[in-house]
């Protein structure tokens, strides 16, 4: 493959994957948006105004460049006058029905969505990796017990469970993250188990055993690094699902009331679709773009890691 080329440094393999990833335009665009969103999520709230600050004098301001007609009914004269309201540059994305700044709310939402997405996926993938590798490596009854447990977990209607638990324990971000994380590992566990099963029989595992490696060493040094590409791809592709789940929960009113997430904004926006469409549309677009970006990026990663894929 690299016959004749000098092996420059230990980074060689990563460089190779990076080159392959870069050949997929969509995936680079996806990565770009994810990076942009992460920066916004991390640093945005420091600069943005308080997303919870209400100001009824400027409620329902449209985004810059858009206008709405507002009819004012004069009680004294009995006449209604229509004024055209234009968006103002100090609230570039408009305001909602309570006069909260949409941009500030979207920035806050980015932080919440990414936080929930990363944490819940982190828990799920960690559990999935651990259970999958352990199951494949141990074999026998351990494998049986773990995989049947996985099957049982898979039969739970996940969203219903989420709604129930949030209803019982009260809505908070921690609960949402935990529930999504603790139920979302099943698919990962199965995939990683099957991948590990094939790697476990490869000669280098026997060879390292022959040279004195312990079970733990084989698991952490040989099996997990060899399924790491699968882990990374799965994590990337499962983040959008988690973000959607959190948005859905917030949308039906079971989100964390203390935080402004995209789902919460959507929820408030649906009541004023006829007067202030942007309140619902803007978080919708953000969700759409975020999920799409993660999917593009994940697909690109999968192709880059797949030796059979021709790019």
């Amino acid at each position: 493959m690299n016959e004749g080329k000098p092996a420059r440094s230990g980074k060689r393999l990563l460089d190779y994957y990076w080159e392959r990833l870069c050949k997929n335009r969509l995936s680079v665009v996806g990565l770009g948006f994810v990076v942009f969103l992460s920066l916004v999520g991390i640093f945005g709230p420091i600069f943005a105004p308080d997303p919870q600050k209400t100001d009824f004098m400027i409620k329902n301001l449209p985004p810059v460049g858009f206008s709405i007609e507002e009819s004012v009914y004069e009680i004294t004269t009995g006449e209604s006058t229509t004024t055209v309201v234009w968006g103002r540059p100090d609230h570039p994305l408009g305001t909602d029905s309570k006069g909260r700044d949409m941009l500030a709310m979207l920035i806050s939402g980015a932080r919440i969505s990414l936080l929930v997405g990363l944490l819940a996926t982190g828990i799920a993938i960690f559990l999935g990796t651990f259970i999958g590798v352990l199951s494949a490596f141990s074999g026998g009854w351990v494998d049986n017990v773990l995989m049947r447990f996985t099957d049982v977990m898979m039969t739970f209607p996940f969203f219903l469970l989420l709604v129930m638990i949030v209803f019982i324990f009260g809505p908070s971000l921690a609960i949402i993250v935990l529930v999504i994380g603790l139920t979302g590992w099943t698919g990962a566990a199965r995939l990683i188990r099957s991948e590990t099963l094939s790697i476990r029989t490869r000669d280098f595992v026997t060879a390292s055993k022959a040279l004195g490696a312990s079970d733990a060493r084989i698991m952490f040094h040989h099996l997990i690094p060899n399924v790491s590409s699968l882990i990374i791809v799965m994590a990337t592709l499962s983040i959008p699902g988690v973000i959607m789940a959190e948005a859905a929960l917030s949308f039906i009113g079971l989100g964390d009331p203390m935080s402004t997430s995209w789902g919460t904004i959507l929820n408030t926006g649906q009541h004023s679709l006829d007067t202030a469409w942007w309140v619902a549309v803007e978080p919708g677009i953000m969700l759409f773009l975020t999920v799409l970006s993660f999917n593009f990026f994940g697909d690109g990663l999968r192709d880059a890691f797949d030796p059979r894929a021709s790019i």
Partner: protein
Amino acid sequence: MKPETVLEVKDLKTWFFTRRGTVKAVNGVDFVLRKGECLCLVGESGCGKTVTALSILRLFDNPPGRIVGGQVMYKGADLTTCPMPYLREVRGGDIAMVFQNAQSSLNPVFTIGDQIAEQVMVHERISRAKALDRARTLMEEMNIPQPVRALKMYPHQMSGGMKQRAMIAMSLSCSPEILIADEPTTSVDVTIRAQIIHILRELKIRRQMSIIFITHDLSLVKEIGDRAAVVYGGRVVEVAAVENILKSPAHPYTVGLIDCLPDVSSQAKRLPSIPGNTPNPLEMPPGCPFHPRCSRVMDICRLTMPASVKITDVHKVSCHLFGDKNGGIAR
């Protein structure tokens, strides 16, 4: 003077309990390995050579495999029953193993240097820098060109011969007393094969290492072996010094094997072969496992397993032709 024995395999039996029946892959293997010698285990595919090697370090999958009898004595301990932590110390530290397929015996996600250094650090508490230094020395010893560069390579960047040599370097990293080489030259071309044989020979002399060399190729036995044990049907049927095996083979199976050696100068169109196949391990024939294919089969061969008989001090054979029941040597 008889050199000291470093490893003794006594009546080793490794059976695999499968759904279709019990496979007696190793069924009473006996041999000793002496210091600084190279013992070749010779035999056809499926005769139990590899399982014997794996059994020494208990490397086969359990279940379905299990050692049902016998001992592997090393430094006064029986490796078939010793506790796992001790066995792990022995593996790699005292007895190392090289497999036939170097291509897949190296972890594809780490560099060669990392893998050798890790190997050293598993057994010895030394710093990473020192371990890498040791790795470099080993690579030099293996005649790998530009060892420093090679240490930074991933397995897929190396040629097959380099990989096999890196593998040997890795197995030698903790200076084991015994090296088990399981057909280390099957997946490489003839020039690399010559290099590897050369390296192993050097090791034997320089480090006084004992080598168990597993092969089906008698020409390799001639080149590297001091003694050879011919394995058939999970048992050692003949063991002797290499010259004796090659010049005056006793067991009909060994005779057959040597007849099968291709001779470049010979005009024969067709290579001779031993009729039949290795027995189905699920249905081992009663008596001597070789009797269905043996050209000199006798009635007794179908009934009882021949015991090991000494022809000379250094030549032992398990065949009724040489048993007392037949009145001594019949050849």
